[in-house]
């Protein structure tokens, strides 16, 4: 059993440790490439997501890349295709 704080909220797991990759999957993060992960206030290198284990009482934050509103439906025809 382990209790891990993910984005400020406690989550319970049956195992004593969970890898960052598993945590990302369990939290249904839609695009793992778009998330930066902090474990107990230290950033985890993207290449270490699989090997880094999170344990009881750890705090994990998922920080998402956010661009801006313009990566959106500026293309009129694609907007129309969504409306149909």
């Amino acid at each position, binding site marked *: 059993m382990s209790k891990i704080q993910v*984005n*400020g909220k406690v989550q319970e797991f049956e195992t004593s440790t969970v890898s960052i990759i598993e945590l990302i999957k369990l939290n249904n993060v839609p*695009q793992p*490439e*778009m998330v*930066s992960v*902090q474990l107990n*206030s*230290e*950033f985890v*290198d*993207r290449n270490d997501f699989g090997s880094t284990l999170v344990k009881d009482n750890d705090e994990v*934050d998922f*920080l*998402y*890349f*956010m*661009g*801006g*509103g*313009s*990566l*959106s*439906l*500026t*293309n*009129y*025809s*694609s*907007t129309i295709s*969504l409306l149909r």
Partner: protein
Amino acid sequence: MDYTEDQIQRYSRHIILQDVGVEGQEKINNGKVLIVGAGGLGAPVALYLAAAGVGTIGIIDGDVVDLSNLQRQVIHFTPDVNKAKVISAKEKINQLNPDVKVITYHKLLTAENALDIIKEYDFVVDGTDNFPVKFLINDACVQAGKPFSHGGILRFDGQTMTVLPGTACYRCVFQAPPPANAVPTCSQAGVLGAIAGMLGTIQAAEVLKYLTGVGDLLTNRLLTFNAKTMEFRTIKVKHNHNCAVCGDHPTITELVDYEQATCEIKSKH
């Protein structure tokens, strides 16, 4: 600074505000702020900074106003469609507050011009919509020792942090731009218009706090909110010793233009 009767009246709500006062208002009037992007975030930032009387506002944007911008870019009006965004923004700022000197750059911020442009300003606001320029602003400001405000919005979410020389930078948090194919596609993206105002006004408040020296800036903290739940969170972030631009052994010593991933296909209509 000698204020006229009109100016005293115009800025009276700052002047009577404890912590700001005449002294703080003078700092605002002497401030020089560069806004990168006259879009969803840049619009509220420019309007509030103009209203506050920021002495010099620089605006850089290479785009023209598109009808699809008006849902959130509140500095542009319907008759401005097809007008350069920087001109449209300048016109509104001049009407709002003739005290403000507006400098426009109708171009993109690039690795080549970034340092030259930002060196003229006290503070830089990232109001851009794409990752390559966000990283460029970060790297240029870190190298030039300029404070800046990062801002990002997507769908119902927003995030912002303020970066001063020595505090955690954008690259400390997000090591490098996401792979081009990971950037949300057209059908997954979109943004609730008012989110831009929520985030942009937070950025504008940070600028005014910086200029007046009032309060605690959003440094070493990333503020995020989700408008569906209206929950705000502030996540502590630490300066990253492995950061490629401000870490112990920086590997980025020259500015680069990353390739832009985009889903925009300019439509002719």
